[in-house]
């Protein structure tokens, strides 16, 4: 149902129309939105369950890291994984750290990736930290040589040889520098490497990407080295975190994996569209059959509701998942509910012998209390599901939150269209009635 609605340009046109009907809703504002829409190509975003793709959930073991370092270790882990995922060439990949009942989790969403084996191997491996010596022949003869070509000589030192890396301040010039410490095997290898490459450069590669390439100034026999250079505190910390992540990544274990083929998602969307449309048609017939002309007005405001909702989905933007669509459909039901409440009140007042427009205003006024209270209850439940503060004892899964978000948004928009739009449509028509 959602996709069948007109493209974004048309949506903004309807915004204009909507404002034409009652000009006091700040036409300037909507004009801006109109412009904004034209500038941006706002496609609806589909979640993994509809567009196809894979999601992975990992448990992060932080027990081996002192508690003061956990948050920085988590950040560097996230950065590391992001780098790897990007290396794999996945656009719009999403790497998220979550906390569930005190346990740290890593959530990775890979849209469009159906063959997940390769991605998983890439994500799960430990970062490859390597120390490679410079080939001066290459660096002196050309200026545009690639890093890999300039540093072809592997010293045999890798991340496993690194014990830790910290940031310290050089007491002489009070500049930040990065210290590294090797284990016994690494110390031997490093001593040899510093002998071999004295006054030359050794580059440190993390997953084949050069991180730093300091010049060796002395032979270092004790396995404790200091990289100094043009660091500020931030870049020194970053380097240290990268080195640490390569050496000591937090161990992660896979908790769940979920792959949805694009065909299944398409199938869900298509069937959902058909079902939604038929439901809407029956609903419209029911409303018109029951309330006649009033019903027609409410179907019209329902249509505006649909377009408004879509515009907002595009603007925020909201990633549509299957439960999200159900939330949307449910909120349609609630939008109609406001109208039914009002119309029943309206009819009661008419029966009491009040004139048409008085009865209408009274109907809206009296129904408002019920609409407000009933929807507040739904919003309360919606907020508990949405869990806006990410409390770890509540649900943090994207699916449930997607549902809650569209439901909450739907309620607000439906109050707007069900009450204000319908009311103003009826007022305009009431005026005409009086003129006749």
């Amino acid at each position, binding site marked *: 149902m959602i996709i069948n609605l007109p493209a974004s340009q048309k949506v903004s046109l309807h915004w204009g129309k909507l404002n034409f009907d009652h000009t006091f809703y700040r036409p300037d504002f909507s004009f801006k939105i109109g412009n904004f829409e034209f500038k941006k190509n706002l496609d609806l975003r589909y979640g993994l369950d509809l567009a196809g793709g894979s999601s992975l959930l990992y448990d992060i073991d932080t027990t081996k890291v002192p508690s003061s370092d956990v948050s920085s270790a988590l950040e560097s882990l996230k950065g590391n994984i992001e780098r790897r995922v990007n290396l794999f060439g996945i656009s719009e990949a999403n790497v998220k750290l979550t906390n569930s009942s005190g346990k740290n989790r890593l959530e990775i969403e890979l849209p469009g990736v159906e063959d997940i084996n390769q991605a998983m191997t890439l994500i799960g491996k430990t970062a490859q930290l390597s120390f490679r010596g410079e080939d001066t022949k290459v660096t002196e003869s050309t200026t545009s040589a690639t890093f890999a070509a300039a540093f072809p000589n592997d010293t045999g030192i890798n991340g496993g040889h690194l014990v830790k890396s910290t940031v310290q301040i050089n007491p002489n010039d009070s500049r930040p520098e990065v210290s590294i410490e090797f284990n016994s095997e690494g110390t031997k290898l490093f001593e040899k490497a510093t002998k071999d490459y004295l006054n030359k450069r050794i580059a440190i590669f993390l997953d084949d990407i050069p991180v730093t390439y300091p010049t060796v100034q002395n032979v270092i026999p004790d396995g404790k080295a200091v990289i100094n250079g043009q660091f500020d505190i931030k870049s020194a910390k970053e380097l240290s975190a990268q080195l640490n992540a390569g050496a000591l990544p937090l161990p992660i274990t896979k908790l769940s994996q979920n792959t949805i083929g694009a065909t299944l998602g398409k199938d869900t969307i298509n069937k959902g569209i058909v079902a939604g449309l038929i*439901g809407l048609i029956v609903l419209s017939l029911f409303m018109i059959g029951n309330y006649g002309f009033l019903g027609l007005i409410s179907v019209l405001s329902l249509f505006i509701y649909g377009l408004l909702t879509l515009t907002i989905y595009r603007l925020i933007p909201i990633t549509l998942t299957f439960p999200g669509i159900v939330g949307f459909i449910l909120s349609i039901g609630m939008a109609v509910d406001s109208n039914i409440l009002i119309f029943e009140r309206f009819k009661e007042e008419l029966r009491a012998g009040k004139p048409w427009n008085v009865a209408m205003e009274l109907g809206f006024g009296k129904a408002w209390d019920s609409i407000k209270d009933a929807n507040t209850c739904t919003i309360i439940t919606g907020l*508990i599901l949405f869990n806006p503060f990410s409390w770890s004892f509540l649900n943090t899964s994207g699916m449930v939150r997607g549902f809650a978000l569209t439901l909450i948004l739907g309620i607000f928009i439906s109050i707007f269209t069900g009450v204000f739009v319908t009311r103003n449509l009826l007022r305009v028509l009431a005026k005409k009635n009086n003129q006749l």
Partner: protein
Amino acid sequence: MNIMKFRPLFLFISLSLLSISAFSLIKWQFKLSSDFTGGSVWEVQFSKDVGRNEVEKIFKESNVSLRDFQLDNKKASLKFVNIDQNQKTTLDEKVKTLDSGYAELKYETVGPILGKELMQKTFVAIILSSLALLLFIGSKFKDFSFGISAVLAMLHDAFILLGAFSLLGHFFGAELDALFVTALLTTLSASVHDTVVTFDRIRELRQKNFKIDWESLANHAVSEVIVRSINNSMTIIFMLLSLVLLGGAITKWFSLALLIGVVCGTYSSTGVAIPLVLLFKRSKTNDKG
């Protein structure tokens, strides 16, 4: 319209629904999906006809015990224990030799820890919603018997929905999954939504005429809002029914759960919440007398 005279009937309906639910819950519990139990779900679309036995043989050779296997129109739905990536690769390769043109529709594997967490969190969410709604309705109507009645009616609906899914699971293989949790929580809000509208009418009528007794007040209010209640539920039912009948496989049970929840919610505001309020009010007057 004297709807409240049907209170014994409502009591009978509610009690029978609750006891059927309780019976089914005790006897058959739920058919839990891998979201709760942990395990793997694999859906495969074959490009040609493959034999059931051949697929089963692959799993046997790979030492992966199948829990459930459905083959329908070249589409296989397989459920088995939690396996690691190497085992999955082996399965992939073996299926490929059987049919090189197969397509993976869905593969999902969940560790058992997540299921436990999901249950705990759902429980917390229900408790939290109940408390929040109790406070909101109680303070809104300045009368906690309203809040308690609304929340009890809501829990009544939730329990019946759980029971219904226990039955559906036993007879039709419906599974409780993470989506069901969402449906359950929506039922809670839909149920209260309806109840609040009726309560609101009682409050309004009471302001108009303070001397009228609670029972006629309730009757008056219910007969005034019942058309709206039914009409409103009808609209939601249209949307959901079309999703149940026409929607995809994932949609079906989820929409059905919502449908049961909505129908229950409409019934319970008149059939459970209002009679409960009357019960509270009567015991209060009795105390005074």
